């Protein structure tokens, strides 16, 4: 266990600088304040939001620090314990890690009327706010899977996977040991659906390929190296599908998990006022427009309608959308022992060994 922890830390230390990148948006007016955002979101996706906010607040210089979820968590935790400088906003797709930080008392309460419109699942303690609305979707290659056999729900997917040989080595999903997001989706699938066990067994039989990151799966499905990708982040998939016609996106109709990127203002934040204003801006009319139309991240407030507007009309049927609620239930998955047991079960089901 200690060895695992050490290797994890080493991985973080080695990987973090490689992945970390700072993007500076200097202020165009004086006197200048600085807003530091620690985030896991790709700068290319979030840039329009930042630019729009800075246009409204020209005297604020923004430093956008892009990190992996684990690195961001580690730094935020250190800052919370007073061992490191704190960001002004911590924005992460790892809802569980964010929930843990807030549960451990690292966040301040933000009382902004613009955030009151957020639905219950996207708010916790008035400290943690879900800013986006991103479904876990199934992607497939249109050339390999005909429209009529499209996996429109988990049972259809199961049926597809039962066809011997067709998907052998051609299905991809997250390596949940490496991807926090994949792990989160997997634990929730486990909790909420009866098909999960059969699904991973089926994927195991088809020698599923595991990837750390969404983009890897999307690239491979788009160019045909993979036929199918499971539990892919919808926001990225939709953006890719606009550019790559072979990439098709299916939102499962039996149930769809929806992730919301969670943000909080750390207790040690130096610029709380601007941090709160930024959070509020993302859910205002302008911020929502950008999230819905440009970033395709959508907003929890009206994300459901906007999401299906972005999909093709045929899929506009009634759906069981299951947003992942922000709250203490998320920290179950982070429990060391629970994680160990779950990973073991996962590996056993997929039929892969310890290594």
């Amino acid at each position: 266990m200690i060895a695992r922890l050490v290797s994890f830390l080493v991985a973080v230390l080695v990987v973090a600088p490689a992945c970390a990148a700072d993007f500076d948006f200097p202020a165009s007016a004086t006197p200048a304040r600085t807003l530091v955002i620690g985030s896991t979101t790709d700068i290319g996706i979030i840039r329009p939001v930042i630019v729009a906010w800075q246009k409204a607040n020209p005297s604020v210089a923004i430093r956008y620090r892009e990190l992996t979820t684990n690195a961001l968590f580690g730094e935020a935790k250190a800052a919370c314990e007073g061992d490191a400088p704190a960001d002004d906003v911590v924005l992460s797709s790892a809802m569980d890690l964010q929930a843990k930080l807030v549960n451990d008392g690292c966040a301040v309460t933000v009382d902004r009327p613009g955030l009151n419109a957020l639905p219950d699942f996207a708010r916790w303690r008035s400290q943690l706010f879900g800013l986006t609305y991103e479904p876990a979707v199934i992607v497939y290659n249109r050339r390999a899977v005909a429209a009529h056999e499209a996996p429109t729900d988990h049972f259809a997917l199961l049926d597809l996977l039962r066809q011997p040989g067709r998907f052998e080595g051609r299905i991809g999903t997250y390596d949940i040991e490496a991807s926090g997001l994949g792990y989160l989706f997997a634990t929730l699938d486990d909790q909420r659906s009866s098909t999960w066990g059969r699904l991973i067994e089926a994927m195991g039989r088809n020698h599923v390929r595991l990837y750390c990151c969404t983009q890897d799966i999307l690239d491979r499905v788009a160019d045909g190296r993979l036929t199918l990708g499971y539990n892919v982040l919808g926001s990225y998939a939709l953006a890719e599908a606009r550019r790559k016609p072979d990439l098709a996106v299916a939102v499962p109709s039996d149930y769809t998990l929806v992730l919301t990127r969670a943000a909080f203002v750390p207790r040690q934040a130096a610029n709380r006022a601007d941090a709160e204003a930024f959070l509020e801006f993302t859910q205002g009319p302008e911020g929502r427009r950008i999230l819905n139309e440009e970033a395709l991240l959508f907003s929890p407030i009206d994300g459901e309608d906007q999401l299906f507007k972005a999909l093709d009309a045929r899929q506009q049927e009634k759906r069981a959308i299951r947003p992942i609620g922000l709250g203490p239930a998320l920290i179950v998955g982070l429990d060391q022992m629970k994680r160990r047991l779950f990973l073991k079960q996962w590996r056993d089901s997929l039929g892969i060994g310890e290594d």
Partner: protein
Amino acid sequence: MLDPGNARALARASRRRPSIALRLTLAVAFILALAASAALWSAWRYGIQAANEAYDRLLTGASLQIAERISVADGEVLVDLPSSAFELLSLARNDRVFYRVLGMAGETLTGYPDLPLPDTDGSGAAPVVYDAVYSGETVRAVMATRPIAERGMNGNVRVVVAHTVQERIGLARDIATRAAILVGAAGLAIVLIAWFAVRHALAPLRRVERALLSRDPNDLSPFEIETPRELEAVVDAINRFTRRLDRRVTAVQSFVADAAHQLRTPITAIRAQAQIAASEESPDRLRRISRRILDRSVAVSRLADQLLSHALVTHRTDSEPHALVDLRRIAMEAEEETRRFADTAAELPLLDLPEEPVTVAGDRFSLREAVKNLANNAMEHGRPPVAIRVSTEGALARIAVVDHGKGIAKEERASAGTRFRRNRAASSRGASLGLAIAHEVAISHGGELQLRDLDAGGFEVALSLPLSEDRT
């Protein structure tokens, strides 16, 4: 412009004690405040208790759910945290959640390793609920114990689940706030009702006030106002006061009339005699006239004395407090005074006194005057020997003046003492005035004036008074 008297009255008014309405309002407000504080306090206590009970169930449920998922595999204790336990805890929407699972040796298997434990070891069957401080906040915690008995392993695995108390306090505050609103509304209603009740209850006071103010200053008749029982005493006192005032005024008026009438005639006579004396030259006649003048002067002086005595007695009847008086002493003093004013030639009254004191509650001066007047009457109009006799008759004390004459004419005895008659002969005026004094004193002491012939001959006038029970 205010005259000085008015200004003083105003100053007095501004120094007045607080009104009854104000007192009542203050008292009601005080009681209400007390009751409201008690109600709020108990509402808050109840709120906390209710919130604790509700949320403790969540904690207990969660801890039991976790305890249920403890298993042993390959000699290792495994805890597969159920997400349902945390969903349960999430029902306390805004609270932070902490947990800790301890193995048989007390080592932390998973969770927050520094989460405080209860003071007890929790070996009992029921989960232990306790308060602690963790992560800078007050937390409520529950520890459930799961006994494990496997091959080579025997002991307890403990599950601690805690959460912050924000939702509890919120619920308690919610309950207390509702109670406070209710109490406040009830209090307001009570104050309003109390105000009307006080106004209604004090309405008779206003009626009395109006009756007093609208009274003609010369009207001293008793008030006939409808009053509640509590005010009867006040109105009675006012009525007694006006009655006394009425009596006093009447007495003064009749005294002035009596005195004027009584004194005018003899003084006119004296003046006439003096005029005759002025033109008289014969020494014999002069001596006779001056002798007559002296006699008349003595009579007038005695009359004046009696009139004043009567006025004083009447005055004291209403005003002097009664003290314990020994009638023997009264008899002796009366005898002494009689001696002082009597003609030297006259025979002095005898004293007939018992051995024991005869005590009544009374005014010493009035009693003495009464006895003195009776003695004077007896000496003047009766036949000697005159005696002053003190005796007891059952519960009554008697002080009597006895002479050996025929006494007052039978037909006049009934009215004797009630008032002297103005049209009677001058010589008997003094006698009836003396009787009037004695009568008045007897009545004011709760007794009566008794006139009777004695079997052995003679006449007795007695003050029959109630004996004082308190003989000290």
